[in-house]
């Protein structure tokens, strides 16, 4: 039993590392194929999925930070990651997300063990009030622009992004499982690459020191906030990792790129840990991988949950080491490459990936969101205003206005 468990944990970690390295790829894209592996015993397959899902989150930051080609979980790391990359601190960005992620695995497991039985009540209690923090974030986001002109332009960006998000999330233009991929890749990935080409950005020589320019207290604060937010995302339907990260950024004072990277990474890993744990605790699958595990192991026992938790811890450690190793080696190659050509290749690859997973309508969505993302840079307003694409639909949903707005728009 133990050798089989270790074997599938290692295989899952390895597969996660490969998957994470492919720009734009997400575990949801390959789950249908994994579920076909019926010759593997259910418990081993579940261990494989859990290890794969956690390790691809860690390694996924490599393509997001160095290439500006994120998947839907890492899209918000493009902006702070790219900023640090252009300062020669790309490896530090990788260290921040790795350390944030690994601490969050442990912290979120501890939090889940303490407050597990209250999750159902937490959802029932908080549900009527969720629209207020979302509304506050939107207001903060817009008002944090420095002048009246920029406030008006930011409002325009938030509303345009919100409209696009609302239409995409409530239509069958692309499958609901993949609809975030073209939307977020356009806003944060493709737009960053186009701006880099236009500004003729070059990757400077990267510093490989072990220094992290974030105090221990700030790191701890970001990890704790991220872990809590990741768990909250787990039991609050209609609030995703990106919305939670934006809320933490504005309401938790995590606007600094380093703080934000740690917070985002903590949210991502805590959410994945919670999604898998909640299968046993609440019986509701939330993430793509937890849906897959619920199909592989329909009646999850405590022993199996502990086995999955064990595989998550081992896989996180393997993926952390791999991410740190690759995070140091890859920039050495990238600084030798013409960044404009590299950006063009990544744009072409992302366009193909979006077309392959979401078809021609996915390309149209990515084109539109990229145009709005580039407009932010043109207007001189923050690109985080594009998070209106998820915040506006969530606000309408929780305030009960969704049906009215959708019927007005005839959607």
């Amino acid at each position, binding site marked *: 039993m133990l050798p089989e468990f270790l074997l599938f944990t290692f295989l899952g970690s390895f597969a996660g590392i490969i998957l994470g390295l492919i720009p734009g790829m997400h575990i949801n894209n390959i789950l249908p194929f994994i579920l076909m592996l019926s010759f593997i015993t259910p418990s081993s397959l579940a261990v494989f999925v859990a290890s794969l899902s956690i390790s691809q989150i860690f390694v996924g930051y490599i393509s997001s930070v160095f290439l500006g080609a994120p998947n839907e979980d890492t899209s918000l790391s493009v902006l702070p990651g790219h900023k640090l990359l252009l300062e020669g601190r790309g490896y530090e960005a990788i260290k921040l997300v790795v350390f944030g992620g690994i601490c969050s695995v442990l912290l979120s497991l501890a939090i889940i063990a303490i407050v597990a039985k209250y999750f159902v009540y937490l959802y029932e209690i908080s549900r009527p009030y969720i629209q207020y923090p979302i509304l506050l974030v939107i207001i903060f986001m817009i008002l944090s622009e420095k002048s009246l002109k920029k406030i008006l332009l930011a409002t325009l960006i938030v509303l345009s992004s919100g409209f696009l998000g609302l239409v995409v999330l*409530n239509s069958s233009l692309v499958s609901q499982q993949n609809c975030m991929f073209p939307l977020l890749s356009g806003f944060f990935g493709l737009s960053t690459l186009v701006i880099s080409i236009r500004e003729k950005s070059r990757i400077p020589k990267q510093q490989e020191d072990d220094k992290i320019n974030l105090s221990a207290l700030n790191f701890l604060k970001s990890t704790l906030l991220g872990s809590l937010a990741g768990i909250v995302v787990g039991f609050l339907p209609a609030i995703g990792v990106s919305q939670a990260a934006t809320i933490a950024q504005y309401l938790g004072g995590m606007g600094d790129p380093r703080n934000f990277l740690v917070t985002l990474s903590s949210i991502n890993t805590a959410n994945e840990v919670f999604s898998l744990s909640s299968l046993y605790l609440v019986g509701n699958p939330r993430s793509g991988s937890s849906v897959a595990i619920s199909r592989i192991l329909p009646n999850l026992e405590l022993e199996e949950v502990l086995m999955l938790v064990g595989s998550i811890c081992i896989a996180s450690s393997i993926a952390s080491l791999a991410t740190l190793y690759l995070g140091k080696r890859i920039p050495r190659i990238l600084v030798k490459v013409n960044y404009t050509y590299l950006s063009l290749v990544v744009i072409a690859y992302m366009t193909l990936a979006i077309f392959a997973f979401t078809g021609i309508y996915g390309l149209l969505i990515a084109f539109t969101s990229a145009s709005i993302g580039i407009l932010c840079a043109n207007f001189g307003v923050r690109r985080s205003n594009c998070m209106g694409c998820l915040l506006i639909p969530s606000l309408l949903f929780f305030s009960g206005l969704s049906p009215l707005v959708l019927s007005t728009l005839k959607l």
Partner: protein
Amino acid sequence: MLKPSKFQIICILSSIIGLSLVYFIALSKKPAEVSISEVNEGLVGRAVTVKGFISDVKFHKDGHIFLTVSDNGTKIQVPLFSSFLSSTKLDISKIKVGKKVLVSGVVDTYRGQIQIIPKKAEDFKILGA
């Protein structure tokens, strides 16, 4: 390289054209049809269409009808609120256990159960036995 002003105009135009195209194409498409087993908490807040058989009907004293729609052993709750029933003039006598239905609406949860809430007449169609 284009001057910033021209580049800005191109970006504004492509945003407007893109938003308009996305919206008008979306108008001609119904919410994505998914199987009931695929509807989980990850889809809460999004519009979907499901097909299934009515496996339970509960009439509420306030005029609401609470349906359980099943397909291949998986179930989902479909509340038809009195406001929906009166606005759509739906023939209630046709709502019976065993009828095949097509339901569109936004996915939500109520007391831990996943539900789809139809809002317009075309969101709830009885397809037959």
